[in-house]
């Protein structure tokens, strides 16, 4: 098992290296440099700036310098936030994004698991139908629509919660709800289906036949086996939360990494774009790794490659 985990960790290194190479290549293939502004800079100043960021060197040298920096954990300077490195920007914004992401994941798990279990237990009743209709609606509502709706309702109409920024707990409620609803809907659908499938299994029938009560069987035999599909989607879910956080941070003016990424794209701040991409990739690779390891414990039938 240690071998399996080690192998997975080692595999993450080439993945991140390739992601770094792809983004580097893409950003350097873009026509026009980051310092081509509408107002022309004097050539001497432009040359100075380019020398400072190594942009005057041939591409392979720039690539080598970039990789060398990465090995030291240095993501390079930001082109737009002068005097700040990409590391500084990420150190400021990543914790905010992580807080938002964890809160949303919590919303997704709590709401999704309870709705899924309730739907499965009372399958084919009005409760199940309503909750599954809402789940499909939850999957179909883009989070910017949901965010705008929540702001209009809770901030503009009822003036209960702040529409923007990230200061105290009250600021976190609307963004976390807007970001967590789609995952909740996915989890609810998956959990319901998974429970219904497990409930059909022979060992569940046996346990019931032995006289064990419904709730005891549900708790001891069904839920523990039904949860594993939900665990497998934690990886893609992390990716979905990342994608969602761009929009949610944009709407609620949350000073997280997603919002800075959008600004970096409009500013053509290439090092910041590359750095943020790498951090996200690392996040998703670790989430997948975590899921693989967790799966070994939850479902021992899974064979280790």
């Amino acid at each position, binding site marked *: 098992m240690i071998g399996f985990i080690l192998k997975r960790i080692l595999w993450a290194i080439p*993945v991140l290296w390739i992601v770094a190479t792809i983004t580097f290549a893409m950003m350097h293939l873009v026509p026009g440099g980051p310092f081509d502004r509408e107002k022309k800079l004097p050539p001497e100043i432009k040359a100075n700036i380019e020398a400072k960021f190594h942009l005057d060197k041939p591409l392979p040298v720039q690539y080598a310098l970039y990789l060398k920096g990465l090995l030291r954990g240095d993501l390079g300077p930001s082109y737009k936030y002068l005097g700040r490195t990409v590391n500084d920007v990420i150190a400021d914004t990543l914790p905010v994004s992580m807080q938002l992401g964890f809160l949303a994941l919590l919303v997704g798990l709590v709401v999704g698991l309870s709705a899924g279990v309730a739907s499965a237990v009372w399958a084919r009743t009005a409760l199940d139908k309503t909750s599954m209709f809402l789940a*499909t609606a939850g999957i179909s509502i883009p989070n910017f629509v949901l965010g705008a709706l929540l702001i209009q309702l809770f901030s503009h109409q009822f003036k209960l919660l702040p529409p923007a920024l990230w200061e105290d707990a009250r600021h976190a409620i609307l963004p976390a709800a807007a970001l967590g609803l789609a995952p909740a809907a996915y989890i609810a659908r998956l959990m319901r289906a998974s429970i219904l499938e497990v409930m059909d299994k022979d060992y569940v029938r046996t346990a019931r036949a032995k006289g064990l009560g419904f709730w005891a069987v549900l708790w001891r035999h069904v839920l523990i086996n039904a949860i594993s599909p939900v665990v497998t989607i934690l990886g893609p879910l992390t990716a979905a939360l990342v994608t969602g956080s761009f929009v949610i941070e944009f709407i609620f003016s949350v000073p997280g990494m997603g919002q800075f990424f*959008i600004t970096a794209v*409009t500013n053509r701040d290439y090092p910041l*774009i590359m750095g943020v991409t790498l951090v996200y990739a690392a996040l998703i690779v670790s989430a997948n790794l975590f899921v693989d390891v967790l799966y070994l414990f939850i479902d021992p039938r899974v064979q280790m490659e």
Partner: protein
Amino acid sequence: MTNSPFWKRFRKDRLALLSAFLIAGLLIVALFGEALSPYPFDLQDTQNALAAPGDLHWMGTDELGRDLFSRLIYGTRISMAISLLTAFSALILGTLYGAVSGYVGGRVDNWMMRAVDVIYAIPDLLLIILITVLIGRGVLGVFLALSLAGWITVARLIRGEVLRLKEYDYVEAARAFGASHRRILLKHILPNTLGILIVTLTFRIPSAILAESTLSFIGLGLTPPAASWGTLANEGWKALKFYPHLILFPSLAIFITMLAFNFLGDGLRDALDPGARGRG
């Protein structure tokens, strides 16, 4: 056809049936929008800028006095064109890649899937944004970016199916009769994935609508004058507090369309494979 078990099951699913009609209606609007729209989509009625929904302008007007209903109809064409084309091209790319990977198997499959793993490590919206930075943000750029990011899920799914199907006896028999690999793949294996392909296509479309409208909403999507539902929602977002109708109608269009495609997909999947009812 109309008496096949598939059709019988599908007809019973009222939500899916209703969704199919709704989608057919949307396609008509997308194709013949000019005939239905009361004004040209870019006509500026400056006398009535930012008007609330009323008799003259059913859904009101934006800050330049453009009729929102007409713009929404025009947006239907752009949004539907991009999402349908994207879903198709992602499906074709993904099927080719997944089928080859699964059929050839072994080391080739291993490497092809590892390549997919690498792309999987980049969140799709981020990948789409990176590609549009590189190739531009016109309709073509957004379409290419969405297609290039969308095929991966399809490839994984089809690979799994092909891996399963190629072990079947009838494939073995075809091989024993000397059928070429190409023939086995095209005549014996892929036709059996048709059901899954149709369901996948139906689910790819709302994903494409979501990705495109999200991209346009955060201002990194289509560039004017092209306007999708997402662009309209972005314009409405800026005026949310005082003119909520501007974001309401495009949002409703996106939501209802995605809902219809999701219900249709659920219905098709359940009708094609009754065993899957409730699964996933």
